[in-house]
């Protein structure tokens, strides 16, 4: 009567302290340049080594440029962070995939892509979108830098066990509706705190029917409803995805692994602390209108009104709309779009680029739109070139950039200018997220493609 989450968590608990804090063993730790330097400095100060360097993998991603990666990073602080990561990895014997190398990319894209992420694992990284890896049936979650230091020092972290929650999506998705729409829909219903304190399992026939990469998009944004993490039970889709990947088990080990992984599911009588079910048929292409990911709506809807809101809610809502330059009750369709950003650990995988490229094939980018198409990894970039996507994009007036986190959080040069509107396939529309005073509308790759060719918010179903 255990949930999948319980099974993995409990089998990784070294010890439970009085009062319930768990010493949780971590199978795999990912690190990047922004949230790790202070952790290594802490180890140095304490005079201790990394406990299990072979279980740690590093990739610079957050503030690397997405053009001319063969040149030195021009911004001195970014260059210093990336150099610090390289030094720390060399000093402690940690594998790193440097900028420009064939395995480099956004850490949450390359973990699954290389087969380092496997079902049943516990995985942490100093990044809230670590939940992405849960799509393969892992307990994966973001941690702070002090916890990065704990995991480096002991391969464990101290953590209270979250409650369990299951979100079921049943039925068939409509035409032109993708996994990004599912997760934006869920967050719009549950709010940005709807999952706080919980670890979410996504289930139901609509989830089962999704590809591995589409599942990653859903788990990726679990944190945007406050959840500690999100996960999907491994199945044939998972095994087919992993088979033959560089770090996946091989031969007899593979067979044994699949047998083990096949048991990773919630028991039929498992009880969740919270459970909700949505009908897939109710989900339309989504877009956000406000300054948190819960402020989203079906693209054909109007922005909500404040009638039924309490005072505290209204203050926050008004502040968000005023920032966005929108008014309550307005339609989203037809709103001007200045920038389109396709990429990030949410929607920067090959299937996302394929969806975007196939949509814009034979069409032209609107002159008024600046578009940044940023692959999630070097491998995704390579595939996009080999499959001819780059050519399709080029003919439609788009340019494929080099991999990195890019305009998702604008730590590199890819910043949306103040006051400009950007339809972004990334995960956060917070004030200033894509650059000071930038205005973000979150959406999936098809909505982004429709905006890119029309220059305004457009229902992609009309152009399919």
């Amino acid at each position: 009567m255990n949930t999948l989450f319980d099974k993995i968590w409990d089998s990784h608990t070294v010890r439970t302290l009085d009062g319930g804090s768990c010493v949780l063993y971590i199978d795999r730790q990912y690190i990047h340049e922004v949230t790790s330097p202070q952790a290594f400095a802490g180890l140095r100060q304490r005079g201790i080594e990394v406990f299990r360097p072979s279980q740690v993998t590093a990739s610079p991603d957050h503030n690397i440029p997405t053009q001319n990666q063969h040149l030195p990073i021009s911004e001195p602080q970014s260059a210093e962070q990336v150099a610090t990561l390289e030094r720390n990895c060399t000093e402690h014997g940690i594998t790193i995939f440097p900028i420009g190398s064939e395995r480099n990319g956004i850490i949450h894209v390359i973990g699954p892509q290389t087969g380092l992420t496997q079902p049943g694992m516990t995985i942490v990284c100093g990044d809230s979108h670590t939940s992405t890896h849960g799509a393969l049936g892992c307990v994966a979650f973001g941690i702070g830098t002090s916890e990065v230091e704990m995991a480096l020092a002991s391969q464990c972290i101290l953590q209270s066990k979250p409650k369990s929650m299951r979100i079921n999506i049943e039925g068939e998705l409509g035409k032109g509706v993708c996994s990004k729409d599912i997760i934006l829909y869920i967050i719009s219903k549950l709010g940005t705190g709807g999952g706080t304190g919980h670890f979410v399992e996504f289930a139901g026939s609509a989830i089962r029917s999704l590809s591995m990469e589409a599942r990653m998009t859903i788990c990726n944004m679990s944190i945007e409803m406050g959840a500690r993490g999100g996960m999907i039970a491994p199945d044939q889709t998972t095994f087919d995805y992993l088979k033959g990947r560089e770090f996946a088990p091989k031969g007899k080990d593979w067979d044994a692994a699949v047998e083990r992984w096949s048991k990773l599911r919630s028991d039929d009588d498992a009880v969740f602390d919270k459970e909700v079910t949505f009908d897939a048929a109710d989900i339309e292409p989504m877009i956000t209108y406000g300054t948190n990911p819960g402020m989203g709506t079906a693209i054909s809807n109007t922005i909500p009104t404040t009638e039924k809101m309490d005072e505290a809610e209204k203050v926050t809502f008004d502040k968000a709309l005023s920032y966005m330059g929108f008014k309550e009750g307005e339609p989203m369709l037809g709103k001007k779009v200045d920038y389109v950003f396709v990429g990030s650990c949410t929607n920067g995988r090959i299937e996302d680029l394929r969806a975007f490229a196939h949509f814009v094939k034979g069409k032209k980018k609107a002159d008024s739109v600046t578009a940044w198409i940023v692959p999630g990894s070097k491998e995704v970039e390579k595939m996009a070139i080999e499959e001819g996507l780059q050519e399709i994009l080029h003919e439609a007036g788009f340019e494929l950039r080099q991999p990195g986190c890019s305009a998702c959080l604008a730590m590199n040069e890819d910043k949306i200018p103040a006051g400009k509107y950007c339809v972004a396939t990334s995960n956060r529309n917070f004030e200033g997220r894509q650059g000071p005073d930038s205005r973000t509308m979150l959406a999936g790759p098809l909505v982004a493609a429709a905006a890119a060719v029309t220059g305004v918010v457009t229902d992609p179903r009309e152009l399919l």
Partner: protein
Amino acid sequence: MRNKFTTLSSTVVPLPIENIDTDQIIPARFLKATTREGFGENLFRDWRYDKQGEPKADFVMNSPIYKGQILVAGKNFGCGSSREHAAWAIDGAGFRAVVSSFFADIFRNNALNNGLLPVTVSETMLAEIFKAAEADPATELKIDLEAQTIEIVGTSSKESFDIAPYKKQCLMNGYDDVDFLVSIRNEIEHFEQR
């Protein structure tokens, strides 16, 4: 060894906004340091300063009347990114506790790991604190970690709050988790053999 937290009595800085995310607490462009120091000056950077770097008069931290070591904020404080820089920035700006009716999980852990106490109060209590601070900026809160209580000084408004017993001990004694985990490396090694 970190600073020990026992009791704290202080006036408050009220920020009655909900869902304050870590990008507001410390924008990503200020995450490029490789040390833990210096984040306080960029706390709430884009709410606190205009593009020229001048303080915005309407932001509470620039108000001459609201000062103190306790930040009080609307529900779902600290949602978003896992950046511990958010806790470092709040700590660096001189706060020792944050009071809200609801905290995002990662932020709560990050705060606790830095000796910054997140205190979860009821919606009613939060509304009372905002009201009291608005009426009189000299309003003080008293937080007693040992007793796990928070009160508006001089009133009958008092509540108890939850904290994991282990974390409470860490805060009260200035311990941190790395010391503890390194001390049980043998047990962890044994666990790995199973």
